[in-house]
């Protein structure tokens, strides 16, 4: 799936989730925020991260 397709899919998914969780009226109010979030989520989902790169929870090793 291309990047724009991924973004549109995230936006649709977020919109549906927002309607279920907060109601249709609130989901409508969040529309611009949902579009922004879909963009950020697409960047995170598609940016290449090393397969052996673990997440960092709290501290890295102290010096």
């Amino acid at each position, binding site marked *: 799936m291309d990047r724009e397709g991924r973004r549109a899919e995230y936006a649709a998914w977020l919109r549906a989730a927002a309607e279920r969780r907060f109601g249709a009226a609130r989901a409508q109010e969040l529309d611009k*925020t949902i579009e922004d979030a879909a963009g950020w989520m697409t960047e995170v989902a598609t940016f290449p*991260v090393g397969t052996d790169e673990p997440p960092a929870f709290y501290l890295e090793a102290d010096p």
Partner: protein
Amino acid sequence: MSLHTLDAIDAARAIREKVLSPVDLIEALLERIERIDGRIQAWALVDRDGARRAARQAADEAARGAFRGPLHGVPFGAKDIFYSAGLRTEAGSKAMAGFVPDYDATSVARLKAAGAILLGKLQTTEFATTDPAPTRNPWSLVCTPGGSSSGSAAAVAARMIPLAFGTQTIGSNVRPASYCGLVGLKATFGRISTRGVIPLSYTQDHVGLMARSVEDIALGLSIAAGHDPDDPSSSRAPVPDYLAALTRRRAPRVGLLREFFERAASDVADITAQAVNRLARAGADIEEAKMPPTFRAVAAAAYVITRSETASAHAERFALKADLYRPGIRSSIEMGMLIPGDLYVRALRIRRQFRREMSLLLERYDVLLTPTTPTPAPEGMATGDPSFQVPWSISGLPSITVPCGLTTSGLPLGIQLVSGAYAEAPLLSAAAWCEDILGRASAPSL
């Protein structure tokens, strides 16, 4: 000299030499607050009675030659998300109205243990996010002081307090410090305990310091830094003598991050470039450096991490009081509730990859340098663009802003210096050297 203009280290020295009474200092600052804070609105709460009591006690102790520590009798302020025992802590939110903690945040407790006096609590955007505080910029009342640590920056700049705590999750300490002509430090993640600071994003919240000189920042950091067993993110790394580091100041090796200059407004880029030229003429070894590949994804990763963690931090309170939250923080929490867990973890992996790349880049320099902000303080209530702080907030690397000049309309600008993890000593040394060359910011006329 008017007492309200004293820096923390000068006040501490004068108190120790018994040429200044902590009582007189507190009274001078209270008078200053009374006179100008109606226009600035930096303070959420001024603890007049408590501060006067503490000042009288500090004066009595000083008269006996008993000094609690290096800030004996020196007042400080704390952003209103720091717990303060017996004092209202409301985080700029109706959802926190009337909340009075029964203990001090570790950072507040450490300054008090060093003899400092908490004068009051400073305005913040709601829960340190985007819904603005009422605070105005002392350099121009039509402009924001920045945020979220709005009151901390405005109060120090307006000479209502010499030293203040702010916090930074995205860009909330260094940016307002720069907008207000101050020195502002965000230390390495884990360097200063966040226990007792109302969380926004557990893995990106940093306690910050604001003052009018690098020396005051070094003194404040020396006291506030160090391991806190009650904070799981607190580092066990030893705390160097940051004031001693300032005696070793020398021209630094600087990596100049040109891409930040290219994204800055033309007046910011020009004035900052002039400052860089002055540093080069004074002996700084300056070469162009390039941000690593993962820089492209850090804004997105920061968005995903902070929204997810904000939703978690606020889950219980939000479930009960959603209607009391203002629109910015409310939508942040709601979006955080919807972000899938796999994307949150992927954002954490991106963060680690970026930090590793940055650590390699920083091996070649003492500091990296950027303009602190893309623009001077904007007019209006919105708190400005934090994008030049995001890489250092997400990677947990220390950064500091030092004033570097004024725009033609008289608004302050700064240079931002960044160093490797736990390298605050060389960072402060480089900042002090730059401060020597560029000069300290003047005071806003009020």
